[in-house]
């Protein structure tokens, strides 16, 4: 007030006295420009000054203010409106709240109707922020804010009119609404954030103590799980913190989410992509995923951006149900991932230019793939190059909580116990639970209790469970469910009741038929059924099980031989019978079946060994034995026959009887194609091994056969070799001598220049030699493989047949009397024909 008076030197008490009344009047008056002149606010001296200015220019402004102002600057309405609401007296009309400042001045604020929505939004926003801060996520991670509605509920809507699926209605719109595991959500978000540098050009913010966040999180988990999560989280941390490659892309360019259906994988992918600022492009199982179309779609999604419309966000590709995609499509995806920059390729060779029709640019957008079964063979190459995220099961408590919200919103009454039962029944499948609730609701059932939930058979999915889970179910008695809190007394008995007798049978049948691999299943049962805890003193159970196995085998044979596939409906009864015979309460330990494969390989091996042995047996003996006869009757006894007692001395020192014995032995061995082969054991010792035939007749449990000593075996081996060679040579010589007789007969008939055999006449022989040396055209190779230079043609020999053969030879070659006598120094090998018979 003082400055007011000082500035203008006016002493006026009017405003002071009637300030409050003026304010009330100001609110009620319609001419707002006039009101502004009279308005006084206690805590704002600046405004007052302006108002004073207006006041001085009373006349001018008044005229101006009466007419609507031409330019908005004159019109200081925002000031006025805000100023209007802070008043000194409680306003006469409408709601108000009081605000007291630090000086003790109290002001009253109007509450306007049309601001309520904004107020609610602000309230929800603040709620959300507090939730965020409580759950430990730093706000920096959340880049762009979405519209901040929480669970979108149509609270006031009439249920009968709404035809939307509840699953869509209550689908999470925001990151915090997700029901899936927090760790998984965060991992995916972090991975997606790694793409920021290349997609948005944003630099990666340095990590601020992720260890604290991690430890907070793991403490909240189960003790068992925290162990696992610590190592898993370390692994994923490493993956996520790995260096970016040359194009600033993360090391794993595609993320692969896997898990049973209904967990919220697709929802998660969509939400996270939207959250990180991408526009989502989805390819799912409904689209045509043949090779060319797939390629085109990937290219459009990753390389193009929508220029029309409001979506100027970069694309993120989500490929749903990728385990059903054809392998060609997956190969195309891999090729896209591994694309290098085309510029480098072109420089390398001119051919590359011609071959490459399209420009191949590097992948610059993230791709998220979703599958149900991670171990489909088509996905194997993708698994190595993808960031794998396996979805754990949703926590039943969280799911029940969400279901409670949903039921509350739609006016259904259900207690927590019922909802937990529903969760268990559907195996924590979110979609199935919500669909069941909607179904029950639409049938008019507003009140849920456990009995109705348990007896319901709709809303459940066909599930294809893995082999190990099926084996577990077969060999384990189902656990009785715990009594729920607040469950009625009927509930307990009802749960035990259905789970015995017929119900179990039906359950197993259903389970086994939904998993189609009957062969593997049977093998697993066969391998594991003996290790189950049986109370079977008379072994009747085991016999029954084996009978069932025989039945199954016969059935299989009928099906395959006669293509009588209608018999396949009897396959599931084998596991059901096994369940009744062998199920126990404890958790079974199941081993993957190997015995079938091992037996098969052993049979093959044995057969091959026997065939190899049989092939080289001389025909005289081979005509009398066949492979089955050999295997069953002869072989084991034969191996005993060939181990007589022999002295390990030089065979020259043997007595006649021993020599005869040795000879017989060797004869037998040659006739049956048995030899001792020197083999080196892993320890480095040398042993003699009787080929592979010993394995054929090696039966576990029998005492080992008496083995000969190393020296005797060596002796026998050597003698056998010699005898073999002798026999071969004898056979050849017989063959050769027969040939010479036939050739001589031919010679007398015709005149041939080139003769294979030497003539009797010495002179003719020399002439032949000369002619032969003349006509030779092919260079002969000497001992070292070098070609001998064609010698000079020797002079025609004289017909002088007398004189030594040496002289003739000297004259035939190099007709000179100058000879060279070599002085022995280093000597290389001298070639001479050596016959085996000289060595033996």
């Amino acid at each position, binding site marked *: 007030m003082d400055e007011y008076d000082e500035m203008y030197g006016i002493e006026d008490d009017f405003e002071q006295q009637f300030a409050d009344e003026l304010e009330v009047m100001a609110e009620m008056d319609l001419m707002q420009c006039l009101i502004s002149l009279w308005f006084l606010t206690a805590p704002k001296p600046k405004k007052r000054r302006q108002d004073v200015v207006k006041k001085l220019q009373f006349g001018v402004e008044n005229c101006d203010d009466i007419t609507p102002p031409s330019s908005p600057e004159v019109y200081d309405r925002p000031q006025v409106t805000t100023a209007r609401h802070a008043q000194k007296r409680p306003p006469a009309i409408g709601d108000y709240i009081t605000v007291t400042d630090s000086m003790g001045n109290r002001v009253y604020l109007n509450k306007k109707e049309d601001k309520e929505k904004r107020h609610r939004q602000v309230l929800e926003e603040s709620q959300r922020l507090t939730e965020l801060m409580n759950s430990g996520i730093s706000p920096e991670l959340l880049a762009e804010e979405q519209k901040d509605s929480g669970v979108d509920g149509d609270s006031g809507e009439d249920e009968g009119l709404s035809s939307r699926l509840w699953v869509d209605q209550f689908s999470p719109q925001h990151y915090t609404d997700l029901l899936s595991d927090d760790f998984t959500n965060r991992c995916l978000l972090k991975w997606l954030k790694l793409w920021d540098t290349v997609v948005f050009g944003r630099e990666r913010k340095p990590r601020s103590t992720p260890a604290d966040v991690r430890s907070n999180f793991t403490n909240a988990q189960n003790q068992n799980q925290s162990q696992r999560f610590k190592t898993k989280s370390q692994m994923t941390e490493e993956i996520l913190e790995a260096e970016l490659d040359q194009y600033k892309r993360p090391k794993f360019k595609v993320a692969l989410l896997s898990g049973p259906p209904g967990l919220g994988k697709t929802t998660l992918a969509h939400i996270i992509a939207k959250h990180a600022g991408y526009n989502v492009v989805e390819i799912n199982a409904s689209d045509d995923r043949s090779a060319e179309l797939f390629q085109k779609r990937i290219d459009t999604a990753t390389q193009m951006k929508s220029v029309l419309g409001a979506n100027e966000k970069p694309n993120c590709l989500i490929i749903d149900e990728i385990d059903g995609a054809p392998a060609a499509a997956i190969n195309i995806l891999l090729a896209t991932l591994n694309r290098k920059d085309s510029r480098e390729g072109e420089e390398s060779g001119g051919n590359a230019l011609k071959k490459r029709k399209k420009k191949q640019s590097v992948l610059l957008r993230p791709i998220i793939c979703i599958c149900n079964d991670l171990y489909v063979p088509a996905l194997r190459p993708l698994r190595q190059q993808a960031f794998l995220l396996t979805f754990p099961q949703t926590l039943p408590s969280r799911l029940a909580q969400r279901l409670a919200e949903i039921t509350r919103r739609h006016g259904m009454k259900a207690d927590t116990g019922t909802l937990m039962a529903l969760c268990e029944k559907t195996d924590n499948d979110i979609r199935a639970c919500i669909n069941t609730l909607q179904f029950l609701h639409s049938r008019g059932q507003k009140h849920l209790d456990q009995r109705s939930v348990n007896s319901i058979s709709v809303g459940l999915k066909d599930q294809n469970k893995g082999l190990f889970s099926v084996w577990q179910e077969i060999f384990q008695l189902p656990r009785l469910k715990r009594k729920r809190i607040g469950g009625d007394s009927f509930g307990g008995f009802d749960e035990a009741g259905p789970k015995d007798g017929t119900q179990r049978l039906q359950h197993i049948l259903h389970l086994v038929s939904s998993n189609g691999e009957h062969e593997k299943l049977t093998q697993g049962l066969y391998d594991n059924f003996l290790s189950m805890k049986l109370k079977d003193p008379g072994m009747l159970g085991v016999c029954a099980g084996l009978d069932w196995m025989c039945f199954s085998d016969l059935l299989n044979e009928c099906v395959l031989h006669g293509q009588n596939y209608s018999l396949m409906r009897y396959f599931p009864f084998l596991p059901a019978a096994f369940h009744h015979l062998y199920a126990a309460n404890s958790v079974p330990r199941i081993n993957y079946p190997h015995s079938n494969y091992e037996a098969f390989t052993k049979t093959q091996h044995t057969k091959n060994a026997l065939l190899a042995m049989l092939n080289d047996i001389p025909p005289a003996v081979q005509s009398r034995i066949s492979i089955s006869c050999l295997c069953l009757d002869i072989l084991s006894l034969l191996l005993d026959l060939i181990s007589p007692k022999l002295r390990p001395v030089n065979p020259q020192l043997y007595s006649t009887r021993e020599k005869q014995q040795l000879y017989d032995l060797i004869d037998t061995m040659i006739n049956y194609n048995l030899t001792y082969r020197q083999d080196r054991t892993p320890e480095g010792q040398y042993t003699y091994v009787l080929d592979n035939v010993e394995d054929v007749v090696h039966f576990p449990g029998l005492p080992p056969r008496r083995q000969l000593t190393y020296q005797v075996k060596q002796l026998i081996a050597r003698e056998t070799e010699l005898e073999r060679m002798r026999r071969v040579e004898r056979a050849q010589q017989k063959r050769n001598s027969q040939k010479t007789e036939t050739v001589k007969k031919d010679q007398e008939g015709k005149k041939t220049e080139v003769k294979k055999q030497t003539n009797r006449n010495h002179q003719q022989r020399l002439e032949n030699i000369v002619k032969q040396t003349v006509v030779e055209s092919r260079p002969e190779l000497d001992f070292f493989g070098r070609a001998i230079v064609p010698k000079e043609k020797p002079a025609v020999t004289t017909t002088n047949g007398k004189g030594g053969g040496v002289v003739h030879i000297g004259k035939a070659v190099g007709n000179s009397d*100058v000879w*060279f006598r070599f002085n022995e120094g280093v000597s290389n090998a001298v070639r001479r024909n050596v016959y085996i018979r000289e060595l033996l």
Partner: protein
Amino acid sequence: MVQIVISSKAGEGPAEWLLVELQGEVVSRQNTGLAGNLMGDLHYTKEGVPVLIVGHHILYGKQVKLEKPFETMETNQENPTSYTVSALIKKKLIFKTRPKPIITNVPKKV
């Protein structure tokens, strides 16, 4: 100091000879003496390996560069201390492998 003058013929340079070195001795069987007789044949294979055929022996060798070349000189009659170079020897063929006999009775088939 004694000075020995070595000069080469005017015009073209001295001839170049090749030295053949054998590890052994060359004998004459008929005792006719070696002088003037044909010793043998010297051939070269495609790869440049020298092949010497003496009598019924065949020798393989190789061509080696002499680290100290030789030269043959003739003394001048007027001036005993001046020599004329008649040939230079820079390379030699050395046959140091054991000679192989040339066998003429090799049957075509065993």
